């Protein structure tokens, strides 16, 4: 009897262990629909940024209030990875009810833009080949792994809501839907609060939901072809609530993205013959040195003002005369000239010579020391603003403490007269 009890116990324990081990392994090995969805997204991003020569992406979005369209947007983007070129067109209706449409084209050397409202082609030409940034893989970003883990944790028990159907040709269909009962209350509350704030922050055209706001439903379907690339994904969500007057609103948002013409998309540059074209050369403002610095050699000026009898009166002018400028160095003279009758405003620092070195990696920024006519020493700062074509010039913060009610402006504009 004793032996029998032990045997039964041992057997039960073994069966339990086996049961646990095998199902646990099976459970880990089995892919949930959510995992399939993630894999498809990864494969698609990887293939389109590294393997496909060209493809077309269609993106459309519609926002509806009780079935009435509030705003819609359609975008078609064509990518040619070999040429590093892309072409895009976008059209839709804005929240204000205005229709719009525009086209863009971009390759390594040019960027062209045109819109319906203004038939002028704006062409930006680049002097150097640009890096190809037509399509980058978002899963290769630094934080992608961490974000994926966070997303997994948030999705948690909702993973099993994605259903996979396999078609005989090897393609797959993914579908999922969540009703209000299935969305965890906390997630629902946070999401609806966020959406409510977002909608109420913008235009009056949006219904302002104030009461009983909740996410009613979230749905999605996706098609994955036999190579594992996602060909289309359709998502929709319904936010329900009441406005101030107590009218019920169901605001729905639908997004459809399709990928097509893989390796058979052609990107064509728009034909500009006979069109109104505005050309400009791209400036590389992000570089640390100013391109062709010689253009800054010359005089810059601004007015010295005082306030008298409730009006501004010009008492004189300040000048900067840049005599020499190169990538590292700027030299010149600063002086003030007063109009007849206002000579009493002139002070001892009114005429100085300066020679300033540009600070390393600080575009257009230079500090200098100076000696006045009377032998006093001081420090100053100069900033060449080639974006606006101006020079910013300061002496010992003198601009902040006006002498005798004089107003100094530290911005100098070119004296081109």
């Amino acid at each position, binding site marked *: 009897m004793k032996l029998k009890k032990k045997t039964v*116990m041992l057997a*039960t*324990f073994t*069966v*339990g*262990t*086996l*049961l*646990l*081990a095998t*199902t*646990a392994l*099976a*459970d*880990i090995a*089995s892919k*949930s629909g959510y*995992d399939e969805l993630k894999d498809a997204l990864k494969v698609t991003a990887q293939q389109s940024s590294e393997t496909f020569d060209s493809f077309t992406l269609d993106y459309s979005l519609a926002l509806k209030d009780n079935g009435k369209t509030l705003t819609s947007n359609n975008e078609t983007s064509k990518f040619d990875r070999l040429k590093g070129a892309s072409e895009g067109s976008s059209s839709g209706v804005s929240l204000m009810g205005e229709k719009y449409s525009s086209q863009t084209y971009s390759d390594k050397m040019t960027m062209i833009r045109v819109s319906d409202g203004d038939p002028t082609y704006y062409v930006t030409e680049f002097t150097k080949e640009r890096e190809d940034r037509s399509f980058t893989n978002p899963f290769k970003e630094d934080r992608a792994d961490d974000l994926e*883990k966070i997303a*997994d*944790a948030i999705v*948690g*028990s*909702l993973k*099993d*809501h994605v*259903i996979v159907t396999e078609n005989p040709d090897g393609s797959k269909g993914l579908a999922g*839907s969540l*009703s*209000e*009962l*299935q969305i*965890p*209350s*906390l997630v*629902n*509350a946070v999401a*609806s*609060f966020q959406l*409510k704030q977002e909608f109420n922050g913008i235009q009056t055209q949006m219904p302002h*939901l*104030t*009461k*009983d*706001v*909740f996410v009613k439903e979230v749905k999605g379907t996706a098609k994955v072809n036999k190579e594992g690339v996602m060909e289309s994904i359709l998502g929709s969500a319904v936010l*329900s*609530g009441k406005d101030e007057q107590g009218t019920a609103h169901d605001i729905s948002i639908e997004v459809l993205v399709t990928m097509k013409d893989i390796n058979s998309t052609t990107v064509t540059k728009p034909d500009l013959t006979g069109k109104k074209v505005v050309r400009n050369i791209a400036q590389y403002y992000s570089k640390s040195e100013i391109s062709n610095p010689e253009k800054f050699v010359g005089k810059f000026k601004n007015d010295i003002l005082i306030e008298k009898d409730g009006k501004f009166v010009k008492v004189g002018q300040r000048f900067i005369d840049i005599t020499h400028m190169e990538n590292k160095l700027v030299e010149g003279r600063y002086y003030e000239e007063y109009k007849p009758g206002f000579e009493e405003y002139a002070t001892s620092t009114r005429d100085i010579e300066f020679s300033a070195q540009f600070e390393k990696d600080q575009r257009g920024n230079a500090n200098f020391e100076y000696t006045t006519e009377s032998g006093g020493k001081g420090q100053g700062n100069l900033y060449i603003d080639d974006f606006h074509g101006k020079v910013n010039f300061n002496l010992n913060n003198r601009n902040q403490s006006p002498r005798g009610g004089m107003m100094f402006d530290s911005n100098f504009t070119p004296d081109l007269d």
Partner: protein
Amino acid sequence: MAVFQAALINEIEKLYKKKKVLVAVLLSLAVIVIGQLAIVGVRSGLGLRGAGSLEFPMLVLSVFVNTVLPLFTALVAIDSFSGEFTQHTMRITLTRPVSRFKIFCAKITAIMLFILGALLLLLVFSVLAGLIFNTNSATLDSFSRTIFSYIVSLFPMLVLALGIVLLANIFKSGITVFFVSIIIFLTFKVLGLIFSQYSSILLTTQLDWYNLFLVNSFPFAKIVRQFLIMLGSGMMLFTTGFYLYDKKEF
């Protein structure tokens, strides 16, 4: 069978006489009241609906199975074993002409009945509160899913109880068992967050397995797998627990 019945009635009587059960009932009702107040606050303060009449019981369940219920299951299980070991009342129980196996089973069944009772009580009150205080969103389908969710929550909770019983037979002091259980519980929770792809084999994740019954498509394979994992771990915990209990000298 009559012997087992007598032992079970004995165990239930002991459980029933303890203040802990009353505290558990009061706390369960407190969860409902606090939850309902929070919903009302969210609704008037932020303009959100918070929860509809049937989302409310689900909200209560999601909080309850992860906090109050495991805590009181642990207390009841510890009381039933460690409590009797330290108070030496176990000897009195064992002097009866009942085999140790039957006593062990009776104790487990009593704990199971406690869990079931707590779940049913919570179900009734949260559904009532949900219907009275919240905008109606109930359909027959969602109502039956709600009831089902409450009932299936019994299984993972029973496995949890078996785990605690095992611990109670390893450690002598009830307080040690209590703290070790809490530490293991929290560790599992954290592990489930970090290794979310393996989380389905952890007991703490299975506490939320009622969510599977809410899925529209009814993921049968997944439910079976989860059930078998719970069954397997339950069998292991039960036999090990009983083995230790059987060997114990009083």
